[in-house]
């Protein structure tokens, strides 16, 4: 069973690629919602990495970590979207470049 599995490295490389795509998304897109989605993508890449390591070491601590990451991600999405809705009500735009009132 173990010999037929894809090696751990494959999962880590996939997690790395997904994380990079998320980083590029945060840096390159301007819509706040898409930036949020890229952050979720990064969190999921990390989850994959945790679960793969957990399988490799035979310990379930990785799963517990993923459980907490999911809970915290849910809380973060709720608050982040509430903030976004509040900003959108005021300024009618979701473009992060337009929210520059604190600029010096």
């Amino acid at each position: 069973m173990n010999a037929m599995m894809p090696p751990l490295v494959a999962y880590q490389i996939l997690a790395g690629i997904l994380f990079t795509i998320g980083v590029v998304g945060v840096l390159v897109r301007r819509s706040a919602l898409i930036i949020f989605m890229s952050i979720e993508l990064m969190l999921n890449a990390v989850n994959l990495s945790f679960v793969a390591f957990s399988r490799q070491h035979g310990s379930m601590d990785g799963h517990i970590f993923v459980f907490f990451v999911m809970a915290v991600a849910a809380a973060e999405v709720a608050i982040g979207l509430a903030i976004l809705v509040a900003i959108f009500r005021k300024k009618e735009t979701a473009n992060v470049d337009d929210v520059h009132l604190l600029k010096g």
Partner: protein
Amino acid sequence: MLETVLFSFFALTSVVCALGVVFHRNPVHCALLLVGVLLSLSGLFILLNAQFIAALQVIVYAGAIMVLFLFVLMLLNFRQDPDVLTPGAAKGFGFLFGLLVMVELLWTALSPNGGEGGGLPAAPPLPADFGSPAAIGKILYTTWLFPFEITSILLLVAVVGAVVLAKRKFA
């Protein structure tokens, strides 16, 4: 053999959907492509014997968090971005930084010592209930009890915060 086929399928789907999330125009399509990423990751979790986490991924992430995203998208009517990507030099720096991050992660993943690359022993034989809800319940409520309670308080704070932030201020 079957595992390799399934792994390739899920890995390819997740990368294609992730690229779609980052580079697609229509935000609703981006949200649905992110759901695609989450579902393929759920498949990968099942391949890694993490049944409970795979089910949680579908129920919580794909089934609740992304529905919340879609609600906000639809209620605020975010139809389309006029400019998809950041204009000018910032775009180049963004891609360059992304490339650097990828090179660094691949270096760590593939390095023979220090990283968990090639020099690992075979994975130990797993206990029969690895990844099952019973096993997660056992350690969640004993070893990890304190983070569990703190997370519940965190979720309560998030609920209260979301309600306060989204209320209309009555002048």
